[in-house]
């Protein structure tokens, strides 16, 4: 791949993964001059007593650990302020987060608050210019079921969307003792989200070779894990792969603005017909096909990650884009079969009406002026499952 004319890449995340990975955290914190971490955990982690493994990892060290457990999924500003007061009053110098999605968003804002010295979380989220160049150390102990945005530089809280490389955690730790035991659907949602976000990073413009490396790895891990989770949802290896895929996808996103497919999936999920991950799963095969024709996407770059080196090498270059879309369709169809239809293949399975889709298409085109009029409607036709893309005919 030729080096693009303009690109930049910054990923400050150090990933430690594998057996006894938690035991690396005290050393890593010490190298960042931190010895009084504050552990935040969500209700799932608290119920499964996952913090015990981390406490065990800190034994025989000089660290003093503060714990705030069972935090609610949607944290209010008062909770953020209360946690900031605890952090300051008790002289904590690092954050350790054991949880996913909203908890990690809240932890990013909390880190911003305690690092900048602001008292009001609202002031921090409205004034990103005042963000300290280096925030306090933050460690993510990644669970198997995640939103895939945990390791990214994005945070969404109280209606504000923030993007900055500084929001990415310094360290991500994946250890089998803290993966948790989520259900099969939560695991599949993680895999599909990581797959779709990694795939869009690789396919979409502008290209970034280093971001592509993370994206391809996210796709490879997600595909391997999704196949394994179908058969063995309780096995450790696929859950480790899923956690890894979610982290890789987050690193690939970094602080980039949301991609086109992400924005459309959010609009679809907002209708209440389907979840965000399912919307991504429905859109991905159609977007790979449609994006190649209309948005200058390069789905061929994804083929090797999806089908392996041998099959990719035996596919003629002119057929690689089509093969990628086909492989993605096959994967989503398999998930539909193995979950007895709980994961939809196409928009029709999710129960969308034409009116809802027209409304979503109009709102997306209003938001993104670069999209040609009618393009989203044609994408939805391709993702509907019955009507082929007219441009192909």
């Amino acid at each position, binding site marked *: 791949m030729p080096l693009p004319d303009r690109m930049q890449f910054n990923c400050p995340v150090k990933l430690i993964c594998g*057996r006894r990975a938690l035991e*690396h955290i005290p050393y890593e914190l010490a190298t960042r001059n931190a010895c009084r971490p504050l552990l935040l955990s969500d209700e799932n982690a608290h119920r499964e007593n996952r913090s015990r493994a981390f406490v065990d990892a800190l*034994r025989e060290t000089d660290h003093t650990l503060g714990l*705030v*457990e069972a935090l609610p999924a949607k944290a209010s500003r008062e909770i953020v302020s209360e946690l900031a007061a605890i952090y300051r009053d*008790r002289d904590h110098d690092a954050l350790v987060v054991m949880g996913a999605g909203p908890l990690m968003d809240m932890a990013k804002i909390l880190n911003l608050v305690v690092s900048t010295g602001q008292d009001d979380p609202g002031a921090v989220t409205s004034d990103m210019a005042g963000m300290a160049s280096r925030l306090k150390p933050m460690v993510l102990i990644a669970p198997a079921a995640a939103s895939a945005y945990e390791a990214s530089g994005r945070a969404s809280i109280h209606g504000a969307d923030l993007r900055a490389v500084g929001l990415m955690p310094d360290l991500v730790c994946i250890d089998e003792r803290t993966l948790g035991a989520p259900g099969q659907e939560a695991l599949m949602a993680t895999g599909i989200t990581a797959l779709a976000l990694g795939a869009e990073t690789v396919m979409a413009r502008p290209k970034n070779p280093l971001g592509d490396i993370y994206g391809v790895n996210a796709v490879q891990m997600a595909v391997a894990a999704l196949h394994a989770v179908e058969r063995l949802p309780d096995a450790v290896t696929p859950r480790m792969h899923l956690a890894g895929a979610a982290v890789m996808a987050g690193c690939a996103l970094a602080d980039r603005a949301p991609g086109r497919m992400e924005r459309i999936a959010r609009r679809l999920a907002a209708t209440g017909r389907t979840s965000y991950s399912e919307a991504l799963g429905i859109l991905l095969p159609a977007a790979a096909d449609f994006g190649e024709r209309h948005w200058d996407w390069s789905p061929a770059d994804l083929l090797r990650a999806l089908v392996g080196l041998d099959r990719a090498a035996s596919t003629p270059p002119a057929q690689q884009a089509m093969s990628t879309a086909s492989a993605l369709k096959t994967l989503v169809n398999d998930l539909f079969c193995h979950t007895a239809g709980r994961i939809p293949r196409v928009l029709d399975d999710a129960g969308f009406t034409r009116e809802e889709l027209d409304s979503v298409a109009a709102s997306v085109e209003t938001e993104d002026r670069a999209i040609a009029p009618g393009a989203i409607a044609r994408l939805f036709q391709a993702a509907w499952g019955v009507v082929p893309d007219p441009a192909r005919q």
Partner: protein
Amino acid sequence: MNVTYREIKPGKKPVKRAYLAVMLWFMGRAVQAASRVDRAIMDEVADLPDDFVFALGVAERGPWMVVGRRSDGALSYRGRAIGDDPVDLKLAFKHLEAGFLTFTFRENTPVATARDRLNVDGEVAHACAVVRIIDRVQVYLLPKPLARLAVKRYPRWPLLRKCVHRTRIYWRALLGY
């Protein structure tokens, strides 16, 4: 909603610490004994600088095994604590658990290094020599099934030499000379 905060000191692992302390103590005495018995170890020690001191142990709180090179070319065990004297080479496990994995032979030294569990402070060439010495000592000390787990490649030595040297190293390690 009020958040519930609690603060804990995570505590200690006295049994694992004691196990490691005993293993490192015996290993230190065995290294001292082997440097007077095994020709290959003598050659390795001869290449080390005069008054060279190395330590193997667990970062921060220990325990340690401190070994120094004497002027007559042999190694001497200097105890289980790093004192005020300078140490030329420090091989430190980042965590007690990492040392425990290695000394219960579930991970050998190269694997521990590959998994980023071992911190080396000093010359890499000297660290490699020390690891080779410790590997040979482990082959002498441990029965073959355990030694195969502890070292990367189990050497093919004549049985008589191995038995004679093993006996001499055990006796010298127990008596401390």
